[in-house]
């Protein structure tokens, strides 16, 4: 295994002469095989041969030996525990264990390479990419109008937040203002989505720790919210409802009663879970003091959201950089102390209640008016005008076939998703399609922080720690 690939300095011809001719032919053979399925290069722009030498860098597996240059912070916080021995076994007594990618407790297709010393985890390496969908590349081929269909499929537990972050980034380039009602609908949907995402977290955390009935309970309560989403957007998931310029449609008739029903049923469920979890000695023992991460580690590793808050960082993007008028509503940010799995559980439970509080306020204060901007540049003309006027029809057709142009520039917009800071970085070159779209997804950082949380803890804690990090693999691999 090579640590760093050879760095080509200056003379680009040199590596080509060094490469043996035989290696060349095999790599072009594999290229031919691949090209049958995928036409890889835009004709005439193939990479020069020396560039290929970069790609054989070795396996993605755990390093053979501890890398001395690994920064101190990634080695993790050592927790006092009777079972963990300080004296490390010899290298040849360590056992390598592979977990995943097809494992019921890894929440998708996460793979962990573990180095075990008896029951103690000495080193961990998460291996990701099993769900890499190429969405950032696909985004470059879709117009801004179509873009939200793409991004909504990244983090499939909080699609509304993905759409919102994308829309905010595009809107900041466009410079359009969203009417108050549109903003209120956005807040309503994203906060409901936070609740439904945390409910799935409840279900999986419970199941992973042996409380299998939680899977039934959590998904039962989530279903109420999904039914509301289906009524509003037409789909249970992957809604493509929040779009640049506002939202796709107004709320349907009778939505108030649905929200009231949700506001009544979900808190009942939540108090049921608290009853189940809070006094449960098994749950307490398996979560307290497990998977600890300190505030300093959180900051250096980019960990955000409930995990960072559980470790004592008082930081919520909804308070710090308010978006969509969320600062009009009154809510608190729960902050933990110990940074362990138990505190994350408490923080998430409290967030469910606070989000439901915001939903209630939206229900009471939602203003009337437009649900999307009246700027004709990004919004299609109203349905009625299409029947009357030819121009409106053409306008509508143009908008949906070729999209709208966005001024050149770059913009980063972030929202607080159920998992943490979710950012979208959009680079526009003045045309209808983004030049580059990058999603900064919270789960990516959380998977990266797993070794910090797990090192020198016990094998049984792996499952609890992964579940508490709540990674969504679609969010990690994109």
């Amino acid at each position: 295994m090579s640590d760093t690939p050879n760095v080509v300095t200056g003379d680009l011809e040199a590596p080509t002469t060094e490469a043996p001719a035989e290696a060349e032919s095999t790599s072009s053979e594999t290229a031919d095989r691949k090209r049958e399925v995928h036409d890889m290069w835009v004709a005439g722009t193939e990479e020069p041969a020396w560039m290929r030498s970069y790609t054989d860098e070795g396996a993605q597996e755990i390093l053979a030996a501890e890398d001395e240059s690994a920064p101190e912070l990634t080695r993790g916080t050592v927790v006092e525990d009777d079972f963990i021995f300080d004296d490390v076994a010899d290298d040849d007594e360590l056992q390598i264990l592979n977990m995943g990618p097809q494992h019921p407790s890894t929440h998708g297709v996460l793979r962990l390479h573990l180095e075990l010393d008896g029951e103690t985890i000495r080193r961990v390496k998460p291996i990701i990419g099993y769900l890499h969908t190429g969405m950032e590349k696909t985004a470059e081929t879709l117009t801004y109008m179509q873009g939200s269909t793409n991004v909504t499929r990244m983090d499939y537990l909080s699609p509304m937040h993905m759409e919102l972050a994308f829309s905010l980034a595009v809107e900041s380039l466009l410079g359009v203002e969203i009417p108050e009602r549109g903003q209120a609908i956005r807040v309503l949907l994203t906060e409901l989505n936070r609740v439904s995402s945390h409910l799935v977290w409840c279900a999986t955390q419970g199941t992973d720790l042996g409380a299998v009935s939680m899977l039934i309970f959590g998904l039962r309560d989530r279903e109420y919210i999904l039914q509301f989403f289906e009524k509003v957007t037409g789909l249970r998931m992957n809604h493509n409802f929040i779009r640049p310029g506002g939202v796709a449609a107004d709320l349907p008739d009778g939505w108030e009663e649905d929200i009231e029903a949700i506001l009544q049923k979900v808190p009942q469920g939540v108090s049921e879970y608290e009853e189940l979890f809070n006094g449960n000695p098994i749950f307490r023992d398996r979560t307290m003091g497990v998977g600890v991460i300190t505030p300093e580690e959180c900051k250096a590793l980019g960990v955000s959201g409930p995990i960072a808050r559980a470790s004592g960082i008082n930081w919520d993007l909804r308070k710090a950089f308010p978006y969509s008028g969320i600062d009009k509503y009154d809510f608190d940010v729960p902050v933990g102390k110990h940074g362990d799995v138990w505190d994350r559980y408490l923080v998430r439970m409290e967030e469910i209640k606070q989000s439901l509080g915001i939903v209630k306020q939206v229900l009471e204060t939602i203003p009337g008016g437009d649900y999307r901007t009246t700027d004709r540049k990004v919004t299609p003309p109203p349905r009625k005008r299409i029947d009357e006027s030819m121009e409106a029809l053409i306008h509508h057709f143009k908008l949906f076939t070729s999209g709208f142009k966005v001024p050149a520039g770059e913009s980063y917009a972030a929202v607080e998703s159920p998992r943490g800071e979710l950012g979208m970085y959009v680079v526009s070159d003045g045309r209808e399609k983004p030049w580059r779209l990058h999603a900064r997804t919270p789960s990516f950082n959380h998977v990266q922080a797993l070794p910090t949380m797990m090192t020198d803890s016990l094998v049984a804690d792996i499952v609890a720690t992964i579940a508490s990090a709540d990674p969504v693999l679609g969010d990690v691999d994109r």
Partner: protein
Amino acid sequence: MAHRSGPSGFLLTTYDAAINWTRTRSMWAATFGLACCAIEMMATGAAHNDLARFGMEVFRASPRQADLMIVAGRVSQKMAPVLRQVYDQMSEPKWVISMGACASTGGMFNNYALVQGVDEVVPVDVYVPGCPPGPQSLIHGILTLQDKVMSGEIVR
């Protein structure tokens, strides 16, 4: 089932029909959740839709104990070998349901990273359309598979 009740309470049927019937009544699925569709697969097993009505609420984590693989979600180039290996580890008879647009055709992601349809990797018996297919669609897909097995359309 082709059967006829005799005068003294015997149940007569063909050997094949009896075998097929037993196969359909306890089809255990391997959890092969990949992406968004997997969440809907979980929802299908949960309270509202209750897959247990069809004798298949037991999702097995180990492919050795499973008869049915529900490929729920998009299959990347990196995942395809794993998928094939899990399929090979399942014991016969085995069936595959391809759940969702991505698993069936690559869906909206026609790009370098995805396998354009799992049928390039494993043989598929039933395709369930949708993005994501709702629990009802998945249940319909499973019932279709059971019908096909019963009628002898799929022979293993």
